[in-house]
Structures are given as C-alpha cells and as structure tokens.
C-alpha cells in the first residue's frame, strides 16, 4: 500500500501550496495517473478519505485523470498503445517497446477556496 505514502506526499504538497497561494481549503484535487505507473487507482481512492481527514482537504473530491500507456517500438519505430510494460509491439511483435507516455503520477490542478 504505497498509495498511502503517495497520498501523504500529495497532502504535503497541498500544505505547501496553501501557504504559497493563500488558500485554506481544497475542494477538488485532480491527479493524472498513467496506466503504466505503479499506482492502483482503487487503492488511491480507498486511502484518500483516510489520509485527508482532519486536513485542509477533508471532504475534497478526488478526480483521477487516467493517461493511457504509449511507447515506441525499438525495432520498427511505430508508436503503439501499451497496457503493460511488457506488451510486444502491436505492429511487428517485438518486445522492448520504449515507454513514452503513461508512467506519470502528477498533481495536475486544485479547486480551492
């Protein structure tokens, strides 16, 4: 359950942002989570209310923007969609597709008051 650690990290960022940007409450948090990142979205949702309780983001809405995995085949150069890190190239069948998108775990934006 490293999702709890990740959420604690999100909370720290919220606290820093609150001081810098002068807000006291977070209404909504948008996270961008890549399909190839090692985050279970269900676990994030499960842990979110627990970690945010008694914080400036208590009762905030969690919005998850899922980003599909994508990569470039090292043999034929085609850009292909990836569901896992070990998918072969859908064009030529070679393994070893270099990931170009879908590994991110980002705090995208906040709705605050």
């Amino acid at each position, binding site marked *: 359950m*490293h999702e709890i*650690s990740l959420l604690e990290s*999100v909370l*720290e960022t919220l606290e820093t942002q*609150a001081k810098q940007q002068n807000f006291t409450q977070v209404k909504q948090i948008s996270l961008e989570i890549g399909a190839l990142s090692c985050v279970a979205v269900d676990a994030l949702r499960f842990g979110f209310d627990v970690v945010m309780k008694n914080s*400036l983001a208590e009762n905030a809405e969690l919005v998850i923007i899922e980003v599909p995995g994508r990569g470039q085949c090292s043999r034929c150069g085609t850009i292909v969609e990836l569901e896992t890190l*070990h998918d072969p190239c859908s064009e030529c069948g070679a393994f*070893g597709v270099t990931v170009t998108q879908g590994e991110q775990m980002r705090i995208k934006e906040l*709705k*605050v008051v």
Partner: protein
Amino acid sequence: MCGICGCSDTQSKAKGLFKPTQLHHHGVMSLHRHDHHHETHTERMIQVEQDILAKNNSYAGQNRQYFQQHKIFALNFVSSPGAGKTTLLVETINLLKTQMNIAVIEGDQQTEHDADRIRATGTKALQINTGKACHLDAHDIGHAVTDLQVADGSFLAIENVGNLVCPSSFDLGEAHKVVVLSVTEGDDKPLKYPDMFHAADLMIINKMDLLPYVNFDVNRCIEFAKRVNPKIGVLQLSATKQETLTEWTTWITNQMRSLA
C-alpha cells in the same frame, strides 16, 4: 541537523526506533470552522503540475549528488521477502571487506535482525524500521548516511524492505537497483511484478544450487525480464557458495573502480 537534506528532523526511523509512516510532516493545517465566511470566498483553480513523488525525487537527487561528491557506490537491493538479499550481502562483504570500505543500510518493517547479521561480519550497519511503510524513501537514506558516517569511496549497500511492488517507485539516489530473484520463486515473476524489473539495472538469480530440486526455468525467467527491460543485466549465483560469487564481486569492483 541532517548533513544531506539540511532538515532538523532528529526523529528518523533509524536505529530500531519505531515510528509510524508520517516521518516528515511539518504540521497538519487545521480546518477553519467559519461557515459564515464561506459564501464570500470564491472558488478558484490552481495549476500545480507537480510529480506526486517530487519531494522524494528531490531528496534522491541530493543523495545522488552526495554519493558522487564522496565517490560512494550505492546499490539498492530489492526482492520479495526470502530471496536471499541479506545472505548475499553477508557473503559479498566477507569476500570484499579487505579490499574496500563497506557500509550497509537495512530496511525492514520491524526488528534489528538483518543489521545484526551484517554487524557480525565487522561491517557497520544501520537498521531502519519502516513501521507500517512498505519501502524505504530517499529522506530515510539521507539521514542514515549521515548517521552511519559512510566513508568516502565506500561501497554502500541498501537492503530495501522485501517487497517487489512499492520500492520500485521510490528513487533513493542509488547508482543501480539490483533485483534479487531466487529459483524457489516463480520464473514468471518479472511479468507478475514488471515495475520492479523495469526499474532495475541488474537481476541476480539466486539459490542456483537448488535448481535441480525446483521447477524453475532460468531461460524463461531471463526472457521475461528482458521483455520488461531489454537492458537488464543478469547474474546467476548461489549466495551460500562463495565460488559462484566471482562474477558478482568483479562487477562491484569494476563499478567502484570507474568511480575513483
């Protein structure tokens, strides 16, 4: 004060001190109870665009810079519980301790057992008990390196918590992640836990002496690992058989030489 990150956190998780996961919280802001004001506050959007692990990555960057400046060769050992990381470290230390300074950081949820096994070799070791957490983070490592007073030019072995999932996300500032897989496990682990094999630079297949007794296909395992990470290096050995460790210790020695 910590020599690497500069923070004043004196309560690190090191030395067997149990501390729950909130290592580095700098106070939780209280929620204002002023309902009558709320209507006058306007909602606004703030673009953050920041990696969730930005803080860990920043500590890892500081560690990496420190290691480079002090010519410390740091390896982050990851595996399932029971793959033989500690035994491999003990036997590696026994072979290399007369040639170089070695220091070890041990990560486990509880107990000082692994650090005790390392200390029995005469090598200094620091145990970090992560409590509920399933991985070491870069901030833990910065403090541990300061507490251990790792000498310049040392080989620093960091044994992560036995877990093939979580430690893959947390950069510690190491030169390489080394994933240890033993033949008593499934040969399809690289596909079952691809994140870790994707993040590692070297895979050690351990307990090769037990191969005749188990159903483990070495070639299949290597093929699966290369699907996830075509650049991964592979070594096959038995940590308990010193004669099988030559290629491994030579690899370490060569890596150390390239730093000097």
